[in-house]
């Protein structure tokens, strides 16, 4: 009996411990509660003491000399090093201290190693990353980067700093998410840093519509296709103003593009695409337009908004540079920022640099394909994917053609084809003396226009519009990156992969890429619109903004005696040029005499609306509902295909142009009725629908509908912020749209007596949800407020106080 009691108690005790130590016990979503709740190493250890941030003295192997890090009241680190390597080492250490889990997770995602830590639910994403050949591309880029002594030194120092932090970490100090998900940090590598860069490239230059365009062309036929999808918006206000003339002889493609473009319906769902219709703003105004004569530079890159934030604010000083700005956790250096003499910032270039090629197999073994009259064998690379909870890793063979990896292969289809991807960012970089990592370090050091221009020559992709302003008065903007030379419409559709003549024919020489310095109009600006007007001699396609850029150019042109405050106002402006142009058109076409009293009231209300997406107002909701449903009724003949194949969306500027110029266009006909509708009839129908909808349930405020959010990286709602009170929408300068928007707002005044700067991002310095500094700038960001950035002249700069000082001493290994 006593023995039985002992056995039963032992079983009970051991099973209790086992259950508490198991992740997702009995298939539940619960984390392992024992490691999580115990106060020694559980989540309690991550509950940061409010107000405490003690000074620290550390001895770290790998440092050459001593480094001082001062933290200001927002915990922004200001690093003072005695050589460059130590500065990047310290950056790695401090970034890991604040953002280790984020660094780990973001690079696991892009490299297809998520299933290893979260299990089968991430397998699909991992498989796709491997099939796209991302890891191979990163390995190849690293091999080339390593040959540049400049890039290698920076990366090495950064990696050593990250690992100096990881190696002394005790389990109790692991970031909270490791405890929740039940895995451990592993040493950082240079490959991880390159993978992070790949993640940025995927986010910014992997957008393409080849499959959708090919399907749409097939569905509509050539004439209707060209009618609905013109490539250039005549109202466009390009980045490089028309005063810039192209005084060069463009490189002409040597080989003629084959006559026949492929056209067929591809059942493949395209790769998950980066968010559409959102981008970034930057501009610089020259001293001739500002009140006090100083050039002012502004930048607000729009990205997916996450907690921890994509950006990490930092100041770094060495004998060669003193620079302040935001960095990307995983990459060395300041990405967007300034120094005493210059400031720089970026917006994305929408040019399409990812093309698809249809591979025709020789036979159903699918190992060799037709090419230029002969055949070629695929090369294969084995990808090993570990999956949490599975004993054996999954092994797949990824096929590579001369175009690139075979991402899609439909083995169930009787048609013998596959789709190979040629992505510029996967190409092995050309040999040169420095690469992307050094570009930013050179910008940190740059003193003037020439050094800025030189720094940009090391940079390929993702292509960016690099804006520039200098204390000596220069302003400039360079569309910068590597751009393939394309013939008209090349790369717009899926191309025949059996012909080498379909390949890109070289790259546009760097000095022929659109750029402008000190234009007469006194400002330079970009907002993801077309790089240049139609006189530019090279063909390029892609996705370009049609409203923010025009609105910003219009606003800047009209502004005089500009102050920093004026430009902060422009960054936070919730006015949509799209709404400004669409609303009068909509209202003009609406047959007033057919409206009842209630509908007339809605009409009256809308006609008084100014096109500002104010978060407290209901007009933006009513208008957007009307706009969106009119779009859907208009292009129903295309939209009905969405469930079966990828199709293109007619751009909204073309939609409005059709409404304005050809309201009798056949596209306005709603297919469901026998009657042939015109634009006015569709507008009446959708207006009545909207009125009926809002009669039943009154329109909510714009805030509720737009739901501006900053989500935790693992989408844990308790660690996220949602429904933020912020005005704006995709086509407004303040382009907040659900979980996308301005991820960093920066204003820099290149004052003669010392640079002055302001900035804010929707996040916090710390990546720890248990820290008050996890999301301390979110509310400030939503209100449109800025922090004055403390650009320290040296470690002893006492103009503002700092709260803590860490000093790193070197020890021999």
């Amino acid at each position, binding site marked *: 009996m006593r023995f039985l009691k002992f056995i039963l108690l032992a079983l009970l005790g051991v099973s209790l411990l086992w259950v508490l130590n198991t992740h997702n016990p009995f298939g539940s979503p619960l984390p392992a509660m*024992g490691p999580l709740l115990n106060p020694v190493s559980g989540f309690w250890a991550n509950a940061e003491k409010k107000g405490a941030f003690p000074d620290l003295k550390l001895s770290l192997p790998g440092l050459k000399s001593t480094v001082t890090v001062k933290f200001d009241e927002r915990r922004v680190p200001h690093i003072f090093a005695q050589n460059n390597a130590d500065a990047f080492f310290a950056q790695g250490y401090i970034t890991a201290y604040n953002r280790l889990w984020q660094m780990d997770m973001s690079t696991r995602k892009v490299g297809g190693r998520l299933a290893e830590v979260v299990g089968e639910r991430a397998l699909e994403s991992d498989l796709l990353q491997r099939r796209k050949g991302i890891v191979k591309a990163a390995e190849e880029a690293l091999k080339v980067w390593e040959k540049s002594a400049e890039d290698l030194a920076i990366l090495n120092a950064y990696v050593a700093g990250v690992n100096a932090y990881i190696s002394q970490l005790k389990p109790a100090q692991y970031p*909270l998410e490791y405890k929740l998900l039940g895995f451990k940090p592993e040493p950082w590598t240079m490959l991880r840093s390159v993978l992070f860069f790949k993640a940025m490239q995927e986010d910014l230059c992997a957008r393409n519509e080849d499959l959708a365009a090919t399907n749409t062309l097939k569905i509509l036929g050539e004439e209707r296709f060209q009618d609905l999808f013109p490539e250039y918006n005549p109202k466009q206000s390009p980045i490089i103003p028309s005063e810039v003339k192209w005084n060069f002889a463009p490189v002409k493609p040597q080989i003629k593009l084959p006559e026949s473009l492929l056209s067929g319906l591809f059942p493949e769902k395209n790769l998950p695409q980066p968010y559409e219709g959102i981008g970034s703003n930057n501009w610089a105004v020259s001293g001739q337009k500002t009140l006090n004569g100083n050039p002012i530079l502004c930048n607000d890159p729009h990205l997916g908004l996450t907690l921890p934030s994509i950006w990490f604010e930092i100041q770094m000083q060495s004998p060669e540079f003193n620079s302040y700005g935001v960095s990307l956790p995983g990459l060395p250096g300041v990405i967007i920022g300034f120094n005493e003499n210059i400031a720089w910032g970026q917006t994305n270039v929408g040019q399409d640099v990812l093309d698809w090629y249809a591979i025709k197999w020789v036979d159903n073994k699918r190992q060799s394909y037709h090419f230029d009259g002969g055949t070629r064998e695929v090369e294969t690379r084995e990808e090993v994917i570990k999956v949490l909870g599975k004993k054996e890793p999954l092994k797949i063979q990824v096929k590579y053609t001369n175009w690139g990896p075979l991402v899609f292969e439909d083995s169930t289809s009787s048609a013998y084809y596959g789709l190979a991807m040629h992505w510029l960012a996967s190409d092995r970089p050309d040999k040169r003396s420095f690469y992307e990592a050094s570009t930013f370090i050179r910008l940190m050091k740059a003193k003037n226009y020439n050094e800025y221009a030189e720094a940009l020559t090391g940079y390929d992709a993702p292509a960016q519009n690099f804006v520039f302003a200098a204390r000596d008065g220069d302003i400039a903007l360079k569309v910068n990156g590597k751009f393939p030379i394309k013939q008209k419409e090349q790369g717009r559709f899926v191309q025949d992969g059996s012909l080498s003549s379909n390949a890109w024919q070289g790259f546009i020489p760097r000095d022929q890429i659109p750029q402008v310095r000190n234009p007469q109009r006194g400002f330079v600006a970009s907002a993801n619109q077309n790089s240049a007007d139609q006189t530019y001699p090279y063909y390029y396609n892609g996705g370009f903004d049609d409203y923010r850029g025009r609105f910003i150019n219009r606003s800047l042109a009209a502004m005089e005696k500009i102050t920093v405050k004026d430009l902060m106002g422009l960054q936070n402006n919730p006015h949509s040029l799209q709404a400004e142009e669409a609303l009068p058109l909509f209202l003009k076409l609406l047959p007033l005499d057919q409206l009842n009293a209630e509908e007339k009231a809605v009409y009256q209300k809308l006609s008084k609306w100014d096109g500002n997406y104010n978060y407290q107002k209901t007009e933006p909701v009513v208008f957007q509902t009307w706009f969106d449903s009119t779009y859907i009724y208009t292009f129903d003949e295309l939209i009905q295909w969405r469930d079966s194949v990828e199709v293109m969306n007619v751009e909204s500027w073309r939609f409005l142009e059709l409404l304005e110029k050809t309201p009798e266009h056949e596209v306005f006909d709603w297919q469901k009725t026998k009657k042939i509708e015109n634009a006015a009839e569709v507008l009446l129908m959708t207006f009545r629908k909207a009125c009926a909808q809002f009669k039943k349930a009154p329109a909510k405020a714009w805030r509720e509908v737009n739901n501006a959010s900053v989500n935790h990286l693992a989408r844990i709602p308790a660690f996220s912020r949602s429904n933020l009170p912020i005005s704006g929408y995709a086509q407004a300068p303040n382009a907040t749209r659900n979980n996308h928007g301005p991820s960093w707002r920066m204003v820099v005044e290149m004052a003669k007596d010392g640079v002055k700067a302001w900035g804010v991002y929707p996040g916090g310095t710390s990546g720890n949800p248990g820290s008050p500094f996890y999301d301390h700038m979110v509310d400030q960001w939503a209100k449109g407020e800025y922090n004055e950035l403390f650009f320290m002249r040296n470690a002893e700069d006492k103009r503002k106080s700092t709260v803590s000082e860490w000093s790193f001493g070197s020890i021999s290994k």
Partner: protein
Amino acid sequence: MLKNMLLILALAVAYWLVPMFLPWWSVAIPAAIFGFLAKNNLRAFSIAFLVLALVWGVPAQMQNAANAGLLAGKMGTLLGGLGAIQMVLVTAVLGGLIGGIFGLLGYSCKQITAR
């Protein structure tokens, strides 16, 4: 009496120190040893329970107070709508249960070996 007090104090210290060097579940060891030395089932369970509930609950509450309930509140939401103080209680009770069960186990071991 003094001996009992010392024993309880030793238990508390062991509860705190042992998992600093061993995994979190090593708190079961001092609980079982205490149970082995206890006079009866009730004492073995209740004292092992109470002491670990305190050794887990008190520091949890101290951390929670210093953090102004920020993280415990988020964790409570994550685990299904608990408040910060409730998270402290859950921590204490969970610790207590582990202590209590292993205390009983220790006593039961003594009963076998005492034969």
